[in-house]
């Protein structure tokens, strides 16, 4: 089970994402933004960071990196893709997920351990959780406010595509406290908080994030 982690110029969390894949029992593969192909990986993680310096808009330039044509194509074909933080921004810019992420409403960078509730445990990345399960994982973003028009938000809620929501105080002004969403098929998930930083007791606040990575291993074995 090979999980590719894309490194863009300015990616920060690619090493932690690869480590999380390994801790979960998968085989992490490095993918470079200039690669044309995905080296036969079974799933893809777009990590956090500041790809291309967040120039223009966060994720806007990464979305046109050579590797992204293959990622978009694979995602449409059903390959599991997880975008974390900047990766979530890239997925929105790629139109693989609806909505967009804008600057936090309070204008400050937020960095803290964040409580979340998993609302959809049927996606490729959340099958290892129970719906309604609470977790605590790190959150760190400057542009983490999830926005979309009301029609889109209603549709996401109606179709169960709100994957995770913030619990307690809304950390960044995301509409309806949305922390993560999925595409219709449930193979593409975008998440603002960082499960890859919560997979080992030594360095994470919890190990609550690990199930994102074990879930996808199970999902691709079953598929």
């Amino acid at each position, binding site marked *: 089970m090979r999980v590719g982690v894309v490194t863009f110029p300015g990616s920060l969390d690619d090493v932690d994402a690869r480590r999380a894949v390994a801790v979960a029992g998968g085989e992490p593969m490095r993918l470079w933004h200039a690669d044309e192909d995905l080296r036969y990986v079974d799933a893809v993680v777009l990590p956090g960071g500041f790809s291309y310096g967040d120039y223009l808009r966060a994720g806007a330039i990464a979305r046109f990196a050579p590797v992204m044509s293959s990622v978009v194509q694979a995602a449409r074909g059903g390959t599991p893709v997880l975008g974390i933080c900047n990766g979530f921004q890239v997925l929105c810019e790629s139109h693989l997920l609806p909505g967009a992420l804008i600057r936090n409403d309070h*204008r400050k960078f937020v960095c803290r351990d964040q409580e979340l509730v998993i609302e959809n445990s049927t996606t490729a990345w959340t099958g290892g959780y129970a719906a309604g399960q609470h977790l605590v994982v790190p959150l760190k973003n400057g542009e983490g406010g999830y926005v979309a028009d009301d029609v889109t938000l209603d549709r996401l809620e109606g179709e169960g595509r709100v994957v995770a929501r913030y619990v307690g105080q809304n950390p960044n002004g995301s509409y309806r406290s949305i922390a993560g969403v999925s595409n219709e098929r449930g193979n593409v998930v975008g998440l603002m908080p960082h499960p890859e930083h919560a997979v080992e007791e030594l360095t994470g606040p919890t190990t609550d994030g690990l199930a994102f990575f074990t879930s996808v291993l199970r999902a691709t074995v079953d598929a």
Partner: protein
Amino acid sequence: MARVVVDVMLKPEILDPQGKAVAQALPRLGFDGITAVRQGKRFELEVDGEVTEERLAQIRGAAETLLSNPVIEDFTVRVEEA
């Protein structure tokens, strides 16, 4: 050579925290009477040769694809006279 200007603004219903920060700073500096600020982006595109309708359509395509995110932003395209 001609110049085409693309202005990109957040849609009115999208919160603009940067504009809000600027709006709050203005009265502190004594610039009164400004009730709201929205911050946008301006792109100046230098175009080779004449700006034809075809070229403008191409630039609109670029504005829609890369320069703006239509989910949260609107844009206008205009030719700047030399």
